[in-house]
């Protein structure tokens, strides 16, 4: 099994979710993160002093999938989340040794 972490622009979340469910993925875990990268943050003004907000809101999707799904998921997310402009984000894939469904105690790919 592999864990795929996708860091994307927030407004892309619904599109990415749709394409993933189309691929038959029916579980994922999402969180709000802040990204630092090539894309620069916005300037804010407060009482005569301007300042840069370096960290940009991003959404992180984590999903654990069977190894044979990795290629198609990565490709789908990459295509769907892409706007072609700086800050579109990253996809990282890493190994997972074990997975358990808490409700039933099932483990392995059955639990996903």
């Amino acid at each position, binding site marked *: 099994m592999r864990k795929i972490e996708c860091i994307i*622009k*927030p*407004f*892309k*979340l*619904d*599109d990415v979710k*749709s394409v993933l469910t189309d691929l038959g993925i029916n579980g994922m875990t*999402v*969180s*709000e993160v802040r990204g630092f990268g090539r*894309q620069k943050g*916005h*300037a*804010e*003004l*407060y009482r005569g002093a*301007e300042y840069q907000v370096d960290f*940009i*809101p991003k*959404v992180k999707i984590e999903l654990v999938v069977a190894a044979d799904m990795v290629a198609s998921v990565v490709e789908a997310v990459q295509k769907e989340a892409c*706007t*072609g*402009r*700086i*800050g579109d984000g990253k996809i990282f894939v890493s190994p997972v040794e074990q997975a358990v469904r808490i409700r039933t105690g099932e483990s392995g790919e059955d639990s996903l």
Partner: protein
Amino acid sequence: MKKIMSLMAAGLMILPSLAFAEDAPVSEMSFILNTFSFLIMGILVMWMAAGFGMLEAGLVRSKNVATICLKNISLFGIAGILFYLMGYNLMYAGVDGGFIGSFGLWGADDAAALAGDYSGGYSAASDWFFQMVFCGAACSVVSGCVAERIKLWSFLAFCVVLCGVIYPIQGSWAWGGGWLSEMGFADYAGSTLVHSVGGWAALTGAIILGARKGKYGKDGRVNPMPGSNIPLATLGTFILWMGWYGFNGGSVLALGDAASAIEMGNVIANTNLAACGGMIAAMIMVQVLYRKVDVTMGLNGALAGLVSITAGPATPSLGAAILIGGVGGVLVVLAVPLFDKLKIDDVVGALSVHLVCGIWGTMAVPFTDSGTSFMVQGIGVVAIGAFVVIASSVVWLVLKFTVGIRANEEDEYRGLDLSEIGMEAYPDFQTIHIGGGSGMPSNAAAQVMTSAATNPAKQH
């Protein structure tokens, strides 16, 4: 019911007090009380500007909250200055049954009263103050409707024209002693003159601006964009309710004689019960229709009741006031989805509350006030509506094709707070970009994406 009305409908009641004008001490007291009533009630009406501000700040998404706050407080500043520069005189000076007053700065003249002649009835500035605060209310109606997408300075420019020109001109027709007042059109405290005027201006604005991105799906779906702070919206409604006692109660325009005081008592009790009726009716409607009570509909219902009674709060019995308000509450629950069906995007329900119920309230006056007629009321509603729609369309379009009125899509997505004023309303709180509350449903996201791809500006 300003100025002119005090000599018309309430004419008989005012007479005793004018009679006292001969015997110095009493008439001085009447003068003082009339003045004090204008001031206190005017302060309550000013407070409604805060109510609109909080209501709207509670009903927009968090990324537009600071901007709507700024709009609401600055429009009140504009109202004051414009009503001094030209509004008051356009509305009240030398209308004489016509269509418009005269131009010129307003200045207080209390020489007669200071010399002991109290027949003027009240201090000049107290009257100016009371009339001025009404003008701000019309702008507040607009700001809520066109929120979350209009540019700050274009909005303020519109307010300048609304306060300086549109509002006073139509106001002169009825309250300034113009042609409508001569026909017998009755609008006690402004269901039409204030609320539906704001509503018409907002309607043209909402249509010309277009809906917020993502609000309406291609398939006709309405995507909710929930308000970010319900207690703030509730506070705003309470403030408006409180201020409305001054709005309607002060519109007796006198306190110097018992008849006026009695009328003020009746007006305030009726105003209160119309709000009660509107709110409870809206809550029941929404429970029946949707099986759950949407708080914001209850709030809108209370305001609907208030707008509905405003054209004639002196004549109904308490029971009739509940009914008039209650119909308003029902109307608002029906009107909100209707405007959505028409794809007219009204962020806070301003059209349903102020326009629809403003018309309803005006047309309901003849039910309890035999001195009025449905015909004349209808003429007033249509005439003022037509004038405001035309005049504000012109202003909106001029603004649109010169400085522009709408924030670009990228800015709208990021929120006007960052793009227009460079700050956040709640910088310490983490806001949600996932799921509910983001106000960015999937087809909206798609639209924004397209725009993002074709518009290589600063991004997210």
